[in-house]
C-alpha cells in the first residue's frame, strides 16, 4: 500500500502546526542530517535520484555538489516558491498545508551546502501560503530549529520569507536572485553560475519548494530506499501530480514517480466529465509540448516524457477536451508568455507578440497557408536565440501544435474560420 510522504499532513485542510508536524515524524530528518556530514547528506540525495521539481529536472544532489563550499564567507540557499507556471498548483498546497516540511527541507539543504542564510521566495498572490510559512518560521525559531547552533550541532541558519510582486520571470533562478537583490528580475548570463556567484555574488543553491520538501524524507528513509518508491525502474521517489480541466475530479495527488499519465487522468482525475472527451493535454504547465491520446501510457517522469517529444515540467496536467480549439488554446498560452516576457532579450520580447499575431490570424481565418512556415521559422528563431529558458518554453507547445494538429490548423486556413465554432 502506497504511503504518502509529502501529503501525509494535508488532511488538516490548514497549515499543520509544529506539534502536528512533529507528531508525524517532522524534524526527524533534520535531527538525523545534523548527525551526518554535509557530504553524506549530499550523497544520500544523489543516491535518491531526486531531480528538480520546478520543471527542469536537474539532479538535485549533483546541483548541491557543484556549490562552492570552500571559499570563505556567506553562502545562500533559496527556495523557489514563485509558482507561476500556468496549470500548476502543487507548491501552493505544500506551503498552505505543511509549511514546516518546506522549512525542514530548507534547513537540511542549507546544512548540506553550508548555507547560513535561507530565503523562501514566494509570489505575492500566495497570501495564505506566505502567512503559513511566516508563522512556521516563528514556530521553528522558538523550537530551536532555526537560528544559532541548531540542536547543538554547531550549524547556524536564518530563514526569511520574501514576498515578491508578480512577474513570471522571477521564477528563473538568476532573475530571482536579481529580484531578491532589489533589482529588476532580468536573467543573468551564465557563467558565472549561482553555485559560485549567485545571490550577492556569493555561492548560492536554489531549488523548487517541492524539491526541498522531498529532502527530509530522503534523509529519514535513506536515499536508495526513497528511490524505490517510484512506479518504474528508472524513476525516483514520489511526485506531486496535479490535474485540471474538464475531468471529474480535478486536484493534486502524490503518486509514485512515473505513474502513467493515463492513470493520473482516468483513475485519480476520475476521467472526463460526462459529455466531454479527451482531446490532448499539457503534461506539466504552459511551457510543455502537447501530448495526444496515443501517448497516454507514458510514465510521468522527466526522461520518459522527453522521449515522446514533450516535457514533464511541473507534473500538473491541463486537459483539453473536445470543445477546445487547439489554436485558441495556443493563443491563450501566448497571451500569457507575451505579457510575462521580461523584455530583456529581443527574440522573446518582440518575437512572441509576432507568434501571437500569426496565431490570431489563423484563428480569425485570415491567414494564408505559407504563414505556417513563417510561424514555424519564427518559433525556431526564438527557441534558439533567446537569453533564458522561458522563451523556448513559450514556443515549444506551438511547435508541438504544428506537428500534432497540422490538419486542425490547416482547416482554419482552408475554411477561413475556426472549425470549432459553429
Amino acid at each position, binding site marked *: 500500500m502506497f504511503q504518502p510522504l509529502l501529503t501525509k499532513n494535508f488532511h488538516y485542510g490548514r497549515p499543520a502546526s509544529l506539534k502536528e508536524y512533529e507528531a508525524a515524524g517532522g524534524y526527524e530528518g533534520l535531527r538525523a542530517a545534523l548527525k551526518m556530514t554535509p557530504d553524506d547528506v549530499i550523497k544520500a540525495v544523489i543516491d535518491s535520484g531526486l531531480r528538480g521539481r520546478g520543471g527542469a529536472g536537474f539532479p538535485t544532489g549533483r546541483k548541491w555538489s557543484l556549490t562552492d563550499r570552500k571559499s570563505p564567507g556567506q553562502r545562500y540557499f533559496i527556495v523557489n516558491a514563485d509558482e507561476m507556471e500556468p496549470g500548476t498548483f502543487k507548491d501552493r498546497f505544500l506551503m498552505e498545508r505543511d509549511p514546516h516540511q518546506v522549512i525542514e527541507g530548507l534547513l537540511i539543504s542549507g546544512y548540506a551546502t553550508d548555507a547560513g542564510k535561507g530565503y523562501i521566495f514566494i509570489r505575492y*498572490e500566495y497570501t495564505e501560503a506566505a502567512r503559513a510559512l511566516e508563522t512556521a518560521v516563528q514556530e521553528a525559531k522558538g523550537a530551536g530549529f532555526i537560528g544559532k547552533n541548531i540542536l547543538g550541532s554547531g550549524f547556524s541558519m536564518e530563514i526569511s520569507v520574501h514576498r*515578491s510582486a508578480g512577474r513570471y520571470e522571477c521564477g528563473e533562478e538568476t532573475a530571482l536572485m536579481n529580484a531578491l537583490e532589489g533589482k529588476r528580475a532580468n536573467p543573468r548570463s551564465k557563467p558565472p553560475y549561482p553555485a559560485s556567484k549567485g545571490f550577492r555574488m556569493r555561492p548560492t543553491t536554489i531549488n523548487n519548494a517541492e524539491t526541498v520538501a522531498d529532502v527530509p524524507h530522503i534523509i529519514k528513509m535513506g536515499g536508495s530506499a526513497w528511490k524505490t518508491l517510484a512506479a518504474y525502474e528508472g524513476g525516483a521517489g514520489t511526485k506531486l501530480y496535479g490535474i485540471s480541466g474538464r475531468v471529474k475530479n480535478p486536484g493534486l495527488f502524490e503518486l509514485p514517480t512515473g505513474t502513467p499519465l493515463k492513470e493520473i487522468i482516468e483513475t485519480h482525475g476520475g476521467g472526463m466529465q460526462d459529455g466531454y472527451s479527451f482531446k490532448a493535454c499539457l503534461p506539466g504547465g504552459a511551457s510543455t509540448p502537447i501530448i495526444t491520446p496515443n501517448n497516454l501510457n507514458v510514465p510521468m517522469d522527466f526522461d520518459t516524457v522527453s522521449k515522446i517529444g514533450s516535457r514533464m515540467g511541473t507534473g500538473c496536467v*491541463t486537459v483539453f477536451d473536445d470543445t477546445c480549439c487547439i489554436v485558441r488554446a495556443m493563443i491563450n498560452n501566448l497571451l500569457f508568455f507575451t505579457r510575462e516576457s521580461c523584455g530583456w532579450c529581443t527574440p522573446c520580447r518582440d518575437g512572441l507578440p509576432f507568434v501571437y499575431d500569426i496565431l490570431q490570424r489563423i484563428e480569425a481565418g485570415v491567414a494564408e497557408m505559407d504563414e505556417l512556415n513563417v510561424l514555424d521559422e519564427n518559433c525556431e528563431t526564438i527557441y534558439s536565440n533567446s537569453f533564458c529558458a522561458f522563451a523556448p518554453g513559450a514556443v515549444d507547445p506551438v511547435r508541438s501544435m504544428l506537428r500534432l494538429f497540422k490538419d486542425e490548423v490547416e482547416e482554419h486556413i482552408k475554411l477561413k474560420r475556426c472549425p470549432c465554432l459553429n
Partner: protein
Amino acid sequence: MAMLSEDRIKELREYVSSLEHPEEALVDLMHEAQETYGYLSDEAAEAVAEIAGVPVIKVEELATFYNLIFRRPVGRKVIFVCDSISCWVMGMENLFEHLKARLGIDIGQTTTDGAFTLLPICCLGACHVAPAMLVGDKLYGNLTPERIDEILEKER
C-alpha cells in the same frame, strides 16, 4: 489619503539602515507604501526612495517591472481574473465578459464608485477549482456567473 506616519517612517528607516543592502528592502517598502496610499503614487514612490536612501528612479525602475505594484490609482479592491490555460479551458472568457458587464467597466478600469478595478492575471495556482479569481487577497474558485454576482455583492 492615508500617509505613512512619522513614527512608521522612522521605524522603517531604522530597519533599512540595519541592512547590509538597503535596496533589498525596496519590494517590501513598495508593498507597504501601496497598502497605505492605495497605490504607489509619485508621493509614495518618493517616500520609499527616501526611506531606502536610493534615487526615486530606482524605485520607478522596479515599480514599472512588477505587475502587482500600481503606479496609477486603483479601486478599493482589485479583481484579478486568472486568464491562463486551465481557467481558459473551464470557460474563463465568458466569465470575464460577465464581470465586465456587471461592473460596467473594461479591463484596466475602475468602477465609478471606486470599489473595484478589473485586471487579468496569470495562473493563480488554483487550477483544481478553475475558473478562479482574486478579489483583493481573497481567492475564489469554481466561478459561475451567479457566484460572481454573489461575490461582487459581498465584496463591494
